[in-house]
């Protein structure tokens, strides 16, 4: 699994020194079950549960973790790899039919395009 994550993301999580800058900066940390630093640790340890975290679907790919990582890890790419592994097996969180009409008819369509690309299979 670790190899697969490395392959899809092009990033090496094992150089992470667990400083926590990513967690401190993260947009969605308050709603995540495990903030980015802990996600990184789980990848380092090869913990399979990392694929089932809520955190990977809360990430809004704002690149603040990537921008600030002192080890130069593109953390957003690792989060994407965790999503992609799920999405390619058909596991998704954003289901078109379930989006409330109130939002569907109001949001700029770019939200749908980006949401579908990141969160639906």
């Amino acid at each position: 699994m670790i190899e697969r994550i490395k392959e899809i993301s092009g990033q090496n999580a094992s150089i992470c020194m667990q400083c926590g800058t990513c967690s401190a900066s993260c947009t969605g940390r308050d709603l995540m079950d495990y903030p980015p630093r802990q996600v990184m640790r789980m990848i380092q340890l090869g913990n399979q549960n990392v694929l089932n975290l809520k955190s990977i679907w809360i990430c809004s790919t704002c690149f603040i973790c990537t921008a600030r990582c002192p080890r130069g890890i593109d953390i957003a790419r690792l989060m994407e790899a965790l999503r992609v592994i799920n999405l390619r097996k058909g596991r998704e969180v954003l289901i078109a039919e379930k989006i409330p009409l109130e939002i569907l008819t109001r949001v700029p369509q770019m939200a749908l395009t980006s949401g579908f690309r990141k969160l639906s299979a």
Partner: protein
Amino acid sequence: MAEERKMVNIYIMGKHYKVPYGLTIMKAMEYAGYRFVRGCGCRGGFCGACGTVYRKPGDFRLKVGLACQTMVEDNMYLTQIPFYPANKATYNLEELTPTLSTILQYYPEVTRCLGCNQCTRICPQELKVMDYIAAAQRGDIEKVAHLSFDCIMCGLCASRCPAEIVHYNVAILARRLYGRHIAPPAKHLAKRVEEIKAGKFDEEIQKLMKMNKEELQKLYNARDIEP
């Protein structure tokens, strides 16, 4: 003595047949013994019922055509896609507004378009399918209506779409919205309706109603035909 007819080899759903050169795919399939119950309609290239996918040796690309319009070629591999079980929304046109929100409400998947262009490549009507989906995505209903005007709803675009968009159903929604809510009402039609209501044609209709079959036939055969 009749000249021997040139024959070609075709493969229908993988099975080999020899059929005469010069037939359409539809005629060739009937020659081979197939009987069309579905997947065949007007036989004139308009109804869109006989979408067919084929490939020729030496080319990895799939080609498409309507079975009633495309000639068989030697070593053609083919199969028909007469129906595609694609998403189709139901709505009351009178209640809709011709806006992006309406498109997104019924077909939010248009925003999943990847821009791969396979739909345009496969369209047997040579429509700019990807471009009209792009127009749908930005709410330009008039453009969708114009670009998709010649769509015969064969469904081949949907069969190729990695984003699972149903292009032809999006397009007909747009054309309906355009026709009902955007296009200005035709003045000549309104005028004619008024004339009918005012009884301008009553006398003529009554005359026709009283005619017998032979008289009607004679009148029909002698009618003005547009060149």
